[in-house]
């Protein structure tokens, strides 16, 4: 293969009649700066055509090029014996036992969801599903991480309801269970909600397929839906701040069709497992342009397409529009010429079109013709890889430093009992039943631990093992100290996975930040990435990919930095899974791990004392790892009846949640606990509500208590025997002379009603049942 010099490209591409000339104004409209435009002219050796400018603007958008993040992302640990496929493909892949592998990835759909919540969220799910099944994996689980402004505002309720409905309708129709997620509400997300969707898929490792075009003469086929004018420049839209004008971007939000997606899923897997194709990629952000150019660059080849051959929904679409459309449910497939008819036959069975639109070439050029005329001719490798990379200035804001230095809220809170009720009734902490009951969580008949627990767990059909998965980020902590906060996010995800008995295997991340060109934002980004890298290195859980979403700013300012961590873990024997609620009266309750009582960044300070600040507890990665290993070993030895992560809201909230139990048990248990000796030097509020990591609350049978203590000792995990689970419906905490007591039925009502009450959800159940 030869990579030709610039000259061959120079004269090739021509503008179409009536096309706008490329002026500085047009360049600006395409979100390209002077440096970038200069490089385009340099690498072409001429002025680009308007179509070429559109292609560059898409591929060199932040969304596709990672131009502000790439240099930082390189610092992530990405290797390990379990890694089959690291970052750079549609999804990361980790090895499982018996020839199985797990493909998983997370992606944001923030900006589209801000202007059109239903379709924005739905198409986010569609995109992440395609990223996973184009690896040859059958999607087996979805998770999501959502952020909105406070529910007191009608607009936020509208966004919340629309996003949840959009996610549900899409995933439910395709038939992939939603296994978990997180939802938080804070002022910073008003006007710029976050919608991060994660998909987990299973494949035989031998079926893995990569998105690298190969084989000169091989045919490119467009499979699935027709191309329309929707979503043109979606990638660029995702790469700018939201403003008053964003509402007018509504037409750029694509419209999803989960029915076609389901057909595409089945057809793609049949093509891949039948070895009928060479490569496959979703036409996601920047549509046909990015899928074809990226596949060519990965394979080190050129491609030639004819946009005149692409099936369109509308008459008279220009090559510019066809190349940049983000119409959903489309795939680009590379197949050997002799296989094209078989590919078309499989697609026809699934009622899909598969249309040849071009072929692989040996000259390394990304060439597009429109009815024979060449309208794009760009050196392919350089198009994908030569976008200028930036490492902007990073400086912590004075305000952030001051916030951290402030150590105390003004008013001490007297009513520590009432504080628990306030926290359990806060939508951040309260049950997300209102959300997850709108998602099908049991389709595929593999759900072993449904949503509402620390992590979702599925069994892998035909094997003894299962997969645990969790998605986590406490953005309040990341806002205060991005390094420690990001470490805490990874630690919490790992703890949630380990609480079920699963060994954490690896992560995907979705890095949601403001405008990286502002030094305080880039500081947050850099520090958060450093924290993720350190935590992942310590845990042996490599980063297998993910997504960066910058420019999450609205007229209200930037969002809290939100590096969402999606973690998967292996449960070697599915039989050993551990649930997160107390199981039976007279079981022993233990607290594993210690507390410093530090309240900086805590939900208690934020929600009860109305104060966000202070220094948060430092994350002890060694202690976290010891705890993870203990939890896995304890599950294997069947010592645990339950294990529940202690995080937002601290120990009191963790104990309350374990006592309250799941939404479908007939009633809550109780517990009678004595915490007097747990942390004698720590003030009462810190003891109850401090958010030190490396802690879980577990319960076990009385017979298991001694072996459990011995096992904790062996793993170097501090263990405190707190008391017993009771059948009576009260949660009693004795701390020295103080006795705190709550009715668990009352806590249960607060916990489960908090969100429905705010959403004024008509409680059909009760009305119909009477």
């Amino acid at each position, binding site marked *: 293969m030869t990579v030709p010099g610039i000259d061959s490209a120079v004269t090739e591409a021509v503008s179409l009649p009536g096309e706008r000339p490329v002026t500085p104004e047009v360049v600006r409209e395409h979100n390209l700066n002077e440096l970038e435009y200069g490089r385009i002219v340099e690498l072409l050796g001429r002025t680009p055509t308007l179509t070429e400018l559109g292609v560059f603007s898409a591929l060199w958008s932040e969304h596709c090029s990672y131009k502000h993040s790439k240099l930082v992302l390189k610092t992530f640990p990405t290797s390990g014996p379990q890694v089959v496929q690291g970052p750079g493909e549609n999804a990361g892949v980790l090895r499982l036992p018996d020839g199985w592998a797990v493909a998983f990835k997370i992606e944001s759909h923030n900006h589209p969801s801000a202007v059109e919540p239903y379709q924005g969220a739905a198409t986010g799910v569609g995109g992440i599903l395609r990223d996973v099944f184009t690896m040859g994996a059958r999607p087996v689980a979805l998770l999501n991480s959502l952020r909105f402004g406070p529910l007191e505002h009608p607009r936020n309720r509208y966004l919340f309801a629309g996003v949840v409905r959009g996610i549900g309708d899409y995933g439910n*129709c395709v038939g992939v269970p939603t296994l978990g997620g997180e939802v938080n509400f804070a002022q910073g997300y008003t006007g710029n909600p976050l919608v991060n969707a994660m998909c987990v898929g299973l494949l035989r490792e031998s079926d893995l397929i990569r998105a690298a075009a190969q084989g000169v003469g091989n045919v490119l086929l467009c499979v699935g839906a027709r191309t329309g004018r929707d979503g043109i420049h979606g990638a660029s839209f995702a790469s700018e701040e939201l403003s008053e004008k964003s509402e007018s971007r509504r037409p750029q939000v694509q419209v999803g069709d989960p029915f076609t997606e389901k057909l595409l899923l089945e057809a793609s897997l049949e093509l891949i497992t039948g070895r009928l194709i060479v490569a496959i990629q979703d036409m996601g952000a920047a549509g046909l342009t990015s899928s074809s150019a990226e596949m060519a660059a990965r394979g080190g080849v050129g491609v030639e397409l004819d946009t005149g051959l692409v099936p369109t929904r509308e008459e008279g679409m220009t090559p510019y529009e066809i190349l940049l459309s983000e119409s959903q449910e489309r795939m680009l497939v590379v197949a050997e010429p002799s296989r094209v008819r078989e590919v078309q036959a499989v697609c026809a069975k699934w009622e899909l079109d598969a249309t040849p639109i071009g072929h692989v070439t040996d000259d390394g050029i990304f060439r597009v013709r429109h009815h024979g005329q060449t309208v794009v001719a760009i050196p392919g490798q350089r198009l994908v890889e030569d976008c200028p990379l930036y490492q902007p200035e990073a400086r912590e804001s004075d305000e952030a430093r001051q916030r951290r230095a402030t150590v105390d809220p003004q008013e001490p809170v007297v009513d520590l009992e009432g504080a628990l009720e306030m926290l359990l009734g806060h939508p951040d902490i309260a049950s997300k039943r209102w959300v997850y009951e709108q998602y099908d969580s*049991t389709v595929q008949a593999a759900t072993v631990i449904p949503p509402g627990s620390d992590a979702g767990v599925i*069994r892998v059909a035909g094997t003894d093992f299962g997969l645990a998965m969790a998605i986590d980020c406490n953005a309040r902590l990341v806002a205060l100290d991005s390094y420690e906060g990001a470490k805490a996010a990874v630690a919490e995800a790992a703890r949630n996975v380990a609480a079920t008995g699963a060994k954490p295997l690896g992560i995907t991340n979705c890095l949601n930040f403001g405008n990286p060109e502002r030094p305080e934002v880039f500081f947050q980004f850099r520090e958060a990435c450093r924290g993720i890298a350190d935590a992942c290195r310590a845990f042996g859980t490599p980063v297998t990919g993910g997504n960066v979403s910058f420019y999450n700013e609205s007229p209200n300012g930037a969002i809290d930095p939100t590096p969402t961590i999606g973690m998967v873990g292996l449960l070697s024997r599915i039989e050993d899974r551990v649930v997160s609620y107390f199981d039976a009266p007279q079981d022993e309750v233990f607290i594993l791990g210690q507390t410093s009582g530090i309240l900086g960044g805590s939900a208690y300070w934020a929600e009860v004392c109305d104060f966000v600040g202070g220094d948060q507890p430092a994350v002890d990665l060694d202690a976290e790892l010891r705890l993870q290993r203990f939890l896995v070993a304890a599950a294997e030895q069947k010592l645990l009846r339950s294990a529940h992560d202690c995080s937002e809201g601290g120990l009191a909230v963790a104990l309350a949640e374990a006592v309250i139990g799941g939404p479908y048990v007939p009633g809550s248990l109780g517990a009678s606990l004595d915490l007097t000796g747990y942390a004698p030097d720590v003030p009462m509020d810190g003891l109850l509500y401090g958010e030190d990591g490396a802690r879980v609350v577990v319960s076990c049978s009385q017979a298991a208590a001694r072996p459990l203590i011995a096992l904790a000792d062996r793993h170097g995990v501090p263990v405190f025997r707190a008391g017993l689970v009771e059948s009576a419906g009260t949660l009693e905490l004795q701390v020295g002379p103080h006795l705190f007591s709550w009715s668990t039925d009352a806590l249960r009502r607060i916990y489960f009603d908090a969100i429905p009450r705010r959403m004024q959800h*008509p409680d059909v159940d009760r009305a119909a*049942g009477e």
Partner: protein
Amino acid sequence: MPRVAVVRFPGSNCDFDTLRAAERYGGEAYFVWHRDVDLRGADIVILPGGFSYGDYLRSGAIARFSPVMQAVRRHAADGGPVLGICNGFQILCEAHLLPGALLRNAGLTFVSKPVDVTVEQIDTAFTCDYEPGARLRLPVAHGEGRFVASEDTLRLLEAEGRVVLRYVAATERSPFQPNPNGSANHIAGICNAAGNIVGIMPHPERAADRILGLTGGAGFFTSPISCHEDSSQPKVSGQ
């Protein structure tokens, strides 16, 4: 071994789950594609859940015209057992193999959760392995599961004992349990007069395996086999 045909429409998504459950409980299960005109010697036919044709127009409204439905109709007319689960139930109603219709849930949202139901009629092809009145916990997952029918039809269904499953009423201590969709008379499943055609909204195929925590659905897969072969089989008493 009885042959169980699981009919796949474009958009079916409980097809594999149903196939595996049928296999686990002794059926020789296989897929039949919606374009097929032959059920290939099926003893039992199951229409699985999902979103056939994307639920466009109305749940099940397009699927009823699929070529395979002619064969299903013939099989049913000959007294062959036919079970419709969720979207399959919707298709059976649209095809007028069962009366009534399934409309948008009263709460207007999709509902996914375990519900408690009682087996009200064991004299059907799919419930003969249950004890009368057995209480089962089964998952529901649907946006359009509110059973409605005319007053006369409802009276007839009740009078003829054709309500197969009924949602259990709420109790003070378990407020999230009952009727998830506002169904008339808390109906979760019905049958035709002969009892060989059954439609239910809950998903027994997701509650037929111990590791999933629920096993009460198994009877829907064992009944058509054991009732057919040997009516002295022990009864499943729920959980």
